[in-house]
């Protein structure tokens, strides 16, 4: 049987991708950011998951305003990097895992989560930057990926509670898959940040630290944060944090916090990262 053994979260700031692609990772601005992931890369290298489920949001790359799925799952064999306006990032094509992806889609739908099934999709920085942070810049990504897209572009995004419940449904789906696979789940986005308007640049360290604490110890409390509170306290784009709750819902109630990293600034953003293992 497949096993979902751990989860992690990380911001997915596009400037991180640009720093990697333009060879700036050793500059003083970027050094502490990449240093913050050295432990995590070693942790991942040791654990060698068979598959990663990456919960992220498409940033108007695969989905325009023509079709806006609230929850979508990538079931394709592979997902090429998207051209976001400056040419596609020079990163490997992301290989999918259609067997498990289709199984999750079917299981989740019968579990009353009406997923949109996506058989052709390009993936943007929202998915490739977390892979870079956790895996560096290999010629091929070290594991296949199942992308799960959550709409956070068009208001309202799904509630944190709904995202948490989706995580639980994903867990049930993985555990009913009839092959021995060790599965890791990524939640991406956040933490506090605002990219638009005269309030751009908002960060909220106190909110972020409390969120990280409760993510480990009391995720139920986080499911009660309203969209309005995210917008006001974490910034208009900080609402991406609901995606972290998909990851958390897929883990045990009791988890061990293996690692955490928080850094301000990365471009306009407070970067946050945490690794949790089931106990």
């Amino acid at each position, binding site marked *: 049987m497949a096993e979902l053994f751990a989860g992690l979260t990380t911001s997915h700031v596009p400037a991180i991708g640009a720093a990697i692609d333009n060879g700036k990772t050793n500059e003083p601005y970027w050094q502490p950011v990449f240093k913050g992931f050295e432990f995590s890369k070693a942790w991942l290298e040791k654990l060698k998951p068979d598959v990663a489920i990456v919960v992220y949001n498409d940033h108007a790359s695969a989905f325009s305003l023509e079709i806006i799925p609230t929850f979508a799952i990538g079931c394709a064999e592979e997902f090429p990097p998207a051209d976001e306006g400056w040419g596609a990032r020079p990163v490997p094509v992301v290989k999918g895992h259609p067997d498990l992806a289709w199984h999750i889609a079917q299981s989740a739908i019968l579990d009353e989560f009406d997923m949109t099934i996506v058989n052709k999709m390009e993936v943007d920085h929202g998915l490739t930057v977390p892979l870079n942070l956790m895996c560096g810049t290999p010629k091929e990504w070290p594991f296949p990926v199942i992308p799960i897209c959550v709409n956070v572009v068009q208001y309202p995004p799904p509630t944190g509670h709904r995202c948490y419940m989706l995580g639980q449904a994903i867990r049930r789906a993985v555990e009913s898959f009839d092959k021995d696979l060790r599965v890791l789940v990524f939640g991406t986005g956040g933490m506090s940040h605002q990219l638009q308007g005269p309030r751009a640049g*908002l960060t*909220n360290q106190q909110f972020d630290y409390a969120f990280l604490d409760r993510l480990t110890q009391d995720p139920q409390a986080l499911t009660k944060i309203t969209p309005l509170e995210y917008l006001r306290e974490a910034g208009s784009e900080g609402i991406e944090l609901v995606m972290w709750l998909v990851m958390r819902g897929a883990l045990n109630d009791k988890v061990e916090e293996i690692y955490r990293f928080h850094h301000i600034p990365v471009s306009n953003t407070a970067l946050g990262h945490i690794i949790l293992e089931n106990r």
Partner: protein
Amino acid sequence: MRQPQPYDDIPGTTVFDAERSRQGYHLNQFCMSLMKPENRAAFRANEAEYLKAWPMTEAQRQRVLARDWNGMIALGGNIYFLAKLFSADGKSFQHVAAIMTGATQEAYAQMMLNGGRSPEGNRSLAEWKQRG
């Protein structure tokens, strides 16, 4: 008339809700078209001509040509779609964020290095009005 929303009280912030999405549909879809290199080339060759193909309002077109980012957001532009436009211009999120706040690039970058904009005094319109 726009229905008032609780998030309208958050200062300096435009939430991309149903009304804004409907208002900005063609503006945002135009931005999306810049994901293709041939479209970027056509846009650069003659911006005004390229924009004619998109049934947006004249005011929206003018704000695109002027790269008036707050102005585009006020007319239904969404920041993730606008990112396709400024990326095609070779500009970063931080570059455009600074412009939207009215700060110089240096001042904005320094504010971020100092820990970003605090939520204190930035939670409600009343706080901004008090500040004047």
